[in-house]
């Protein structure tokens, strides 16, 4: 079973994404900030990271930059933001994100993008 790490400081978002991904057949773990995410990634790499941008201790950019720069994991990462303007899209990709989405994501959209990023059939 493929493993997904959700890194978000909002507990409701984590629960929402977890419920969708578990229903889609994935094993899900959670982290509440980038630092905890890095610790979990160091222990065992994941197949997909779903990363919030604004978080305490270490934000989503910092998480991805360290994940990539220190070669902890090169698995695909979906960066999700609540920001309406999408002005952080460029820095998200420069930090190592494979996809940038604005929250809230619809359930079928989240599953479709997760499958796409993990190289699975989307239908």
């Amino acid at each position, binding site marked *: 079973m493929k493993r997904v790490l959700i890194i978000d400081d*909002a*507990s*409701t*978002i984590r*629960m*929402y994404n977890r*419920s969708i991904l578990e229903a889609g057949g994935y094993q899900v773990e959670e982290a509440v900030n980038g630092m905890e995410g890095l610790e979990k990634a160091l222990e065992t790499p994941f197949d997909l990271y779903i990363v919030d*941008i*604004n978080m*305490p201790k270490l*934000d989503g*950019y910092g998480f991805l930059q360290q994940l990539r720069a220190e070669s902890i994991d090169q698995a695909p990462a979906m960066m999700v933001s*609540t*920001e*309406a*303007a999408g*002005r*952080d899209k460029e*820095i998200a990709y420069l930090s190592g994100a494979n996809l940038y989405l*604005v*929250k*809230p*994501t*619809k*359930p079928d959209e989240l599953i479709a993008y997760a499958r796409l990023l993990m190289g699975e059939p989307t239908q």
Partner: protein
Amino acid sequence: MALVKRTHDDNLPSEQQAGTPKTLEELQQQLQGSHPLERRQAAQDIVDHEGATALLLAQLERETSAVVRQVILTSLTRIGDRDAVFGLAECLRSEDARLRNDAIEAMKEMPDQMAEIVEELLADDDPDVRIFTVNILESLRHPHVEQWLIDVLDHDDHLNVVCTALDLMGEVGTEAAIPALQRVGSRYEDEAYVQFAADMALKRIQSSAE
């Protein structure tokens, strides 16, 4: 050629090494200096001078050192006047995500000053400013937080702002929030996340009331 061990930083101006400048003009010059250490020192020393807020805010926008930026933010928080909180609020419009995050963290440390401008920020035309303001409410520990969130759930017309308020309401909401949570569920009945988050918040409030 013999190596000479440097016992002090030759790049620092002599007055910085000899002692701290005292006048506002000297501190202003030092705040714009080329060395992060002198800028950091100036950002600390300027706090007690009248007119420091404007100088610190101007430097914050151009500051490249994370350490100096942090000291500037600490100094602005210590000053804590209306200009400081308004200046930090302007940082919420910045294209620089780190500056925005730093400003959010600093504003969380100024609950009384923030409370005076929350309603103004929640009515801002820019939905991202409203989202960041809700993020600040999370740590504000102010008695009006729940009512501000109720107002967002009832009146804000941007889904992302409403969702951010719902996340927080799930943590701080009381029975007073139940009608607003029910109304927002009806207002966004096709939005899966709104339904999920409103339902979670209602369950948490109802279970803690039992």
